[in-house]
């Protein structure tokens, strides 16, 4: 199924008023995207709904370079409105790099979540885990549209 409210522009599409990139994978539960950036390394960032539900970001912290992370476990913490919560890793891997720019200016993750506001690079991620993520354009746009609709219906996000 293709979402009726979707307009395509290269890898970026608009779904229910949000910009979503189709050149990467998504993990629905953690609201994180995963994108291969170099051989053996993937980049991880918050998807637009992860940003929206977090509120205005005040602080971010990450695991140290070299630390192992596991799927479903925190690779860092996010603070917004005095609420500290885990940044949940969508995949396993070793922290290869953290985004110093977003640490210095957490607002970058709000302004450009799919680009300069990336969070960490992980190395050694299991290909099987990547294969479990949402990856095809239809999967991504359908899931995103459904989630936006559900969140709006429940009042989680504004109309």
């Amino acid at each position, binding site marked *: 199924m293709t979402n009726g409210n979707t307009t395509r522009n290269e890898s970026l599409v608009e779904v229910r008023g949000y910009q979503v990139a189709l050149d990467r994978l998504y993990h629905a539960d953690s609201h994180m995207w995963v994108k291969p950036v170099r051989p053996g390394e993937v980049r991880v960032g918050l998807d637009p709904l992860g940003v929206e*539900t977090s509120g205005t970001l*005040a602080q971010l*912290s990450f695991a140290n370079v070299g630390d192992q992370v596991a799927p479903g476990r925190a690779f860092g913490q996010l603070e917004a409105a005095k*609420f500290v*919560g885990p940044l949940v890793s969508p995949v396993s891997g070793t922290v290869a790099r953290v985004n110093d720019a977003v*640490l210095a200016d957490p607002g970058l993750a709000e302004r450009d979540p799919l680009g300069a506001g990336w969070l960490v690079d992980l190395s050694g991620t299991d290909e099987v885990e990547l294969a479990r993520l949402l990856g095809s354009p239809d999967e991504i746009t359908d899931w995103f549209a459904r989630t936006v609709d559900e969140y709006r219906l429940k009042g*989680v996000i504004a109309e």
Partner: protein
Amino acid sequence: MSRRTPEAATLRVIDFGRVSALRSQTLWHAVAHGVSAGEPPTLSFVRPAEPYVCLGYHRRLDEVDQAYCTAEGLPIYRRMVGGGPVYLDADQLFFQICLPAGSVSPARTAALRDLLTPALGAYRAAGVAAELDDNMEITVGEAKICGHGAGQVENAVVVCGNLIERFDHERATSILRLPDPTMRAEVLRMMRRFVNPTPADPEEFQRAAVEAYAGALGLTAEPGELTELERAAVEELDEQFTSESWIAGPQGRRRPPAREVKIRAGVWVFAAEHEDARVVASVVGDSVERARFRTSTPSDDLYGDLRAAEAAMAGVTLAKAPAVLAGFGSTGRQLAAAFAAADGKSL
């Protein structure tokens, strides 16, 4: 926010009473581990037997005047919830509501509002005409009366707050490491205005909080106690919370170019400098309430005009500060650069 389920029909209520400063933190963190592992939603109360200082999870240890704390015998701990460095003592009754993460809104602001609203009801039931304002502060008039923070510990969400029976504004200011007496005086002035104790009876507040949270969550309040797992977690947390690495906090956090102190949501004080110009200013909403300027080498075109520049800044929005200060020559431009260093976003 009624989410009654057969598995979670009970609101466990634990009154820890008066405990050590360390335990006033580790006990409720242990509850969060328990709730995460399947214990029922829990409302807890605790009062520290002795004063101490507590940092929000992300805040830098150097925001605290460690020499003062050592001299005064104030331990410093770090909590797993947000907010800044605060002074706590036996005149504050703390409450914590802890729920499985899946039972609160995924939107943090909504979750916070949902879990602070019953506390608001408790204040009102205890005779305090409190409001939950748009900045998510529980207030009476313009002053906040409840210091709150929130966090997710494993799979449990916890929101903490306090009933401030008396508040030592001087000590709450003294625990902060601040760059100069001008900023310290301004922080104290703003804290006296924007942070107030409430005259409510703590027992009445506590009873009302139990009723309000049980009602809002659709649960039946039952007195409870820590489980064996939670008691073991307390021991581990005691060790963790007193370790140097935990107290030092997470690495890699930015040091803002300006020293900023949040008084309450929407109210903050900052000190910043650029070349010879130094600014201490208080901000209410997005406007400067009061600015104090100093230069080490006043330029000719500003000489004698610093007080005029200060007066000109009162009520000016931060966005318009550079334009106003541009009228005060080269030093005015330095002051504008100092202003630009402060944004309050990390508070």
